[in-house]
């Protein structure tokens, strides 16, 4: 049976600083941050989450900051889509933001919410993985940094401890092209059946750095280091084409997908190589 929050029993807090937000999260074991609410409110309606305290992050100072090496947790998909820097530096992320939900959802949905909701299909996850993002976490005691690939511990689960908050992801300046590809069963407003992001940095006609990440193919979004390794050092041309095919197969091997209402595990496993090879091909100038 579905369930709703008991509105008479939910405490609503709206801190204005990170420190206050951390304190607010510690007022109750049942406290939950809310950013755009596009995941949280759906889950509350379905009875999957029953927070007794919601901590609205929208007024927290600095959380919506977007700069050349930093994306605040409160940055919305719409902000990313409007940013020239994002389009130039993180094309895969912008491609992913463009197909997250529809216009209204993009106006509300934040990067922090997308990452912290920890769906294996989270749109921004694989693009940020291929851009070597680091999660910046604020907690009761300190601020810590976690490589994004270590941020998730399972479907719906992150390494965030009690009272901890994702405040931003930081990205090193990366060169080369990146691309994002996903399979959706409907031409818009649908959740990824599987997704993949890739980045190739090509220096002097050979791959200097390669990144491959896959989504909705395992309990968490993940990088496929084995696939990256077969690409690095390979010269552009027929060799790279072969390496891309090899990388695609290795990415397929890295899948541990599930059967669900959208697709079978078999389909997901078969599609990952296709997505990875097409994403990689789009990264070759």
């Amino acid at each position: 049976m579905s369930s709703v929050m008991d509105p008479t029993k939910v405490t609503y807090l709206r801190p204005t600083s990170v420190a206050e937000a951390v304190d607010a999260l510690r007022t109750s074991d049942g406290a939950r941050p809310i950013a755009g609410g596009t995941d949280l409110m759906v889950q509350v309606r379905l009875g999957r989450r029953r927070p007794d305290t919601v901590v609205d992050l929208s007024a927290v100072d600095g959380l919506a900051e977007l700069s050349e090496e930093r994306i605040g947790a409160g940055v919305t998909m719409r902000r990313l889509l409007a940013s020239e820097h994002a389009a130039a530096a993180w094309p895969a992320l912008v491609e992913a933001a463009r197909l997250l939900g529809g216009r209204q959802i993009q106006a509300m949905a934040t990067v922090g919410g997308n990452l912290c909701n920890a769906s294996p299909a989270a749109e921004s996850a694989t693009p940020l993985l291929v851009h070597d993002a680091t999660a910046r976490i604020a907690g009761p005691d300190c601020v810590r940094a976690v490589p994004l690939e270590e941020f998730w511990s399972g479907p719906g689960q992150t390494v965030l401890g009690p009272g901890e908050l994702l405040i931003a992801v930081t990205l090193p300046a990366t060169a080369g092209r990146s691309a994002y590809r996903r399979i959706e069963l409907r031409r818009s407003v649908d959740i990824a059946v599987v997704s993949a992001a890739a980045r190739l940095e090509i220096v002097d006609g050979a791959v200097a750095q390669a990144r491959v990440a896959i989504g909705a193919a395992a309990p968490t979004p993940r990088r496929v280091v084995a696939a990256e390794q077969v690409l690095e050092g390979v010269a552009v041309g027929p060799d790279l084409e072969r390496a891309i095919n090899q990388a695609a197969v290795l990415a397929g091997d890295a899948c541990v997908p599930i059967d669900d209402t959208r697709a079978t595990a078999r389909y997901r496993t078969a599609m990952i190589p296709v997505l990875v090879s097409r994403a990689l091909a789009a990264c070759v100038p």
Partner: protein
Amino acid sequence: MTTTTCGPSSTAATGSAPAVTGSAPAVTGSAPVAPPGTRERTQRRVRDGLGTSADRPDGTPKVTGAFAFSSDLHDQRMLWGRTLRSPHAHARIVSIDTSAAAAMPGVVAVLLAEDVPGKATFGLEHTDQPVLARDVVRYEGEAVAIVAAEHPETALRAIRAIEVTYEPLPLLTDPAEAATTDPIHPDGNVFRTLPLRHGDVDATGDVVVEGTYEVGMQDQAFLGPESALALPSDDGGVELFISTQWLHVDRDQVAACLALPADQVHLTLGGVGGAFGAREDVSLQVHVCLLALATGRPVKMLYSRAESFLGHVHRHPARMRYRHHARRDGTLVKVEAEILLDGGAYASSSTAVLANAVCFAAGPYRVEAARIDGQVVRTNNPPCGAMRGFGVVQVCFAHEAQMDRLAAALDMDPVELRLHNALKPGDAIITGQRLTGTAPVREVIEAAMAHPLPPDPREDEPAIALPGGAGLTARREDVRRGTGIAVSIKNLMYSEGFDDYSTARVRLETSPDGEPFATVHSACAEVGQGFVTLAQQITRTALGIERVVLHAADTGVGSAGSTSASRQTWMSGGAVQLACDTVHHGLLERARGVLGVPDEPLVLEPGRVVDPATGAEVAIAQLLRAGPLEATEEHHHAPTSTLDADGQGDAHVSFAFAAHRATVDVDPDLGLVRVLQIATGQDVGRALNPRAVIGQIEGGIAQGVGLAVMEEILVEDGLVRNPSFTDYLIPTALDMPSVAATLIEQPEPGAPFGAKGVGEPPTISSTPAVVAAIRDATGKALTRVPVRAQDIAFGEAGAIPPTAGSTSAG
């Protein structure tokens, strides 16, 4: 973008003159239609009369958000009702403890099966479904208890506080096992078995193709969830505001279950947010009235989306085995089919759905012989009932796939094969019934094929134009294009001897400003199809006035029958016409008196009555000084008969035909499809409001495309796995193909204004056309809808040519 093409607007009996392509959504209006039947008729045209694309009276409010849907119903004193539903698909109720719920502050009533004062069960054709389950639940979501509380959240907490102990029972979820499994209901597991034997059932053809086909469970997916407001009335009865398809059949079921006389149950239509068959059965009607009577207060109920998926019937899933026999020249000799429909836990309209599946199992083709065996059974799956296309959707998917297999086996063009066998006026369908009306099957096929194909793909197309859309995954060089055709026949109105009449009351009077206006009172449920527009158009044309007011649809006038079976233009349009005729006669009678010409044939013109012999005239307003003119008339269609033991009989009133040609782009590696275009020719009789007809065609195609490539309620062990619009996907604007439509206008004898119903045909053959196009692009067999990405990526090849062994020399 939608390219709309309209057929010729003349009344010529052949309608397939070259179509004129217009730009979206421009529709060239047909010439206004003069209502037949009386010699004295409006000579000059009134504005927004019949045949024009008059605006919907509810169009602007719906677009601006001002329209009140039934979910907006409100009363200051109202309570909120809520339903406790079974989490099991089959279980015995061991005990129910309501004490905690009843003790909660703000909870006003908690009702169980024993609190139902009247008949314990309801149902459209067989009253086999309990108002509230007493001892056994037979599907997930079956209603067990209802509560009323001061606040919706309290109502929700109250149903969660009801403790029900269930003892799970063995599940019957495979329809193939239903007939031989222990009954899960006192009425047994078989709703209906219908054999049909036509012609020489032992005949064989030179070429035989066979196949098995499956159709998944589609949902009507209307956007306005079930909602209603019930108010106790002073006489001990109840007043119900409800979004429904048929007020009177709801009223009769509510009255029976409440043990009230019918005249103490008064229903008024609330704003309907889509129906498509899902509002033909009772959902919350009895519950909300029970709560209002038990509490003595107004009660509102509003289903959540998940509850809505569990709270209404769906389209019957089907398993079909077919064998087609033909001569070398393509002439159909015999069609054999076994059709099994899963009716789910309760009967709903299953028996009528099966009749349609069996009667139209061979499609719109002349067939010398047929042997069809149909059965619809009870299982612990969600109950199934009416949905746009009503039994014909399922068989059309199968017979059209068979026609393509046959064409391949004969090495014949699939369009040629269809034209060769197309029904013509005077031919009989497999029930032995002759087509006495129009049957432009050849014309609809030719019209669909005459539309230009969509332009070839361009290199510079944006990636979003490819299959997979925003996912950016498909590449132009991998994409293959395919086209497919399908044709359908659908009965209009109810069949098998049922007299689904309609009633209308028309009152003509003058307003305080002296202008004449008419009020139309009909219980016809406006569910989006446009009866409100049509009723005004008919009245304007028939009475020569512009101002037509619609009385709220309610049970204060006789039944209009259901808004289903593509029947309201014919049935309720006909009733409005009859009532207008009577008022019209009354006007002329008065005019003869005023003009002193007792025997002259007078003419009604906009605003006045004229004596053509002398030119003398009198204003309608003046004629109404003597008081209003009012008439109430019933409209009955020609009687039909039942089907005999061999499925033979003149069981249907009239038939409508449509052809669809689909063009798709497919990425075969990904299994993703983009439906680019549907070109269609549709037999409409007369287009009384061309824009409304195009609206029905586009909407029907959206639903047909949905069934072809995405829409399915997934049921596992009787449990619905995707009761949300996150997981039950329906096409968005981006998934909608462009539509090129030609209306074939051949007036149907016996139909008011010659108009046929137009709502269902677009849904029926668009699905098989899309799947045929995907087969054409991929060479995969695809014998099941919806076609899933994995069916294309991994599916077996083989629809074309047919699998080895299915072709045999006779």
